[in-house]
């Protein structure tokens, strides 16, 4: 296999990376809102968020992507397929990340909040200075995992016609008859990215001061 083919795959990896990154970040923002609703004491507020999460965690991403890709034009939104892909990945990762965050907030030890209470912190100060930083540290490994999951899942956006690594390998394979070389190379690219994320994640985690024992 020529270097030129590998270079084409690498170029397509730009799409894989950027679509994943945008989806992770948007998903994180959405997850913050969702987790706040999940932590609400009112059943009425929680119910829709729980339904959303149950749906997006219970339906294959491929099916979600097909649904959103076909739904958007149906409701009159003619957006490029890359937008549909990002919406699909974002909603999916938001559901998972919201659950992580909720778990993180719930596992901030009560005693740490009592200590802040005794020091006169307001509810808002406790949230911003104690709960958020600790919950972020507690959920950081799960966030890294989720980033890796989404990166791998982004291969599915090939079905809505986006030429990222997998789709590029598929297209090139059908014209060059080198499927083994091309799909192995694609796999290698995914591996390198996933391992890099894991490595950076582990390094960052160690650099973060004090996890809760």
């Amino acid at each position, binding site marked *: 296999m020529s270097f030129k083919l590998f270079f084409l795959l690498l170029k397509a990896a730009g799409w894989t990376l950027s679509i994943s990154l945008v989806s992770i970040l948007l998903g994180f923002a959405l997850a913050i809102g969702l987790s706040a609703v999940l932590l609400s004491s009112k059943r009425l507020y929680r119910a829709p968020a729980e339904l959303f999460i149950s749906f997006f965690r219970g339906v*294959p991403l*491929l099916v979600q992507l097909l649904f959103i890709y*076909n739904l958007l034009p149906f409701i009159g939104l003619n957006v490029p397929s890359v937008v549909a892909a990002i919406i699909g990945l974002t909603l999916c990762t938001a559901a998972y990340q919201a659950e992580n965050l909720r778990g993180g907030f719930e596992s901030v030890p009560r005693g740490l909040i009592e200590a802040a209470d005794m020091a006169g912190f307001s509810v808002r100060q406790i949230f911003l200075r104690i709960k958020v930083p600790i919950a972020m540290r507690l959920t950081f490994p799960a966030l890294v995992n989720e980033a890796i999951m989404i990166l791998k899942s982004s291969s599915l956006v090939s079905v809505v016609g986006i030429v990222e690594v997998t789709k590029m390998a598929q297209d090139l*394979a059908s014209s060059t008859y080198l499927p*083994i070389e091309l*799909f*192995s190379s694609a796999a290698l690219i995914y*591996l390198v990215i*996933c391992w890099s994320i894991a490595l950076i994640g582990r390094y960052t985690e160690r650099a973060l001061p004090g996890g809760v024992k």
Partner: protein
Amino acid sequence: MIFDPNVILKHLPEIIQGTGVTLALWIAGMAFGIALGFLVATTRRYGGKATNVVLAIPVEILRGTPFLVQIFLVYYGGPFAGLSLGPIPCGLICLTVYSAAYYSEVFRAGFAAVPHGHVEAAECLGLSRVQIIRRILLPEMALIVLPPSVNLAVILLKESAVLSIITVPELTTTISAIGSQEYAFLEAIFLLAVIYWAIVEASAKLGRIAEARLSTFRFSAP
């Protein structure tokens, strides 16, 4: 966007068949995957350091690459390496190997999570190695690995939808075809989502029931 019950009724046999294929592939892939994964996990734990490292390589490759790429490699690349597989056997093999990689990690974590003191206590009481594995490690592990196993089962069911891309006649393939045929693709996909959702919720519920039953002997974790 109206659901015509007659259309669904007309295609009911196909829908049932597609669901059957999905369930069969899922359960078979998972069963083989659990068996293979358990074998890998025990070999890695008790087979010495070199074996552990060698087996880590395929496990990490399978966990670090998309399922879709794995399927493409086997389905399209297979014939070039003298391995021509139809969609269903290809799908089953890929699902098995993929789930084995993940299950082996679940079991590995399970082994590690049984408190060493429990094993030491059994050793002091004179239980043999096999007895310790059978009477102490496995029952305690069952409880530890149950929740992640149920999670993984749900993930595998969802991954099985990807098999539609290589035309395995499972649920996603079947219902998409009906959608195109009836000019009602969106409705069909929605129905598809609901069916998956129902299966996922049902299996999660089953998992919780099993967990509640097992946890009657829950030990206090360290």
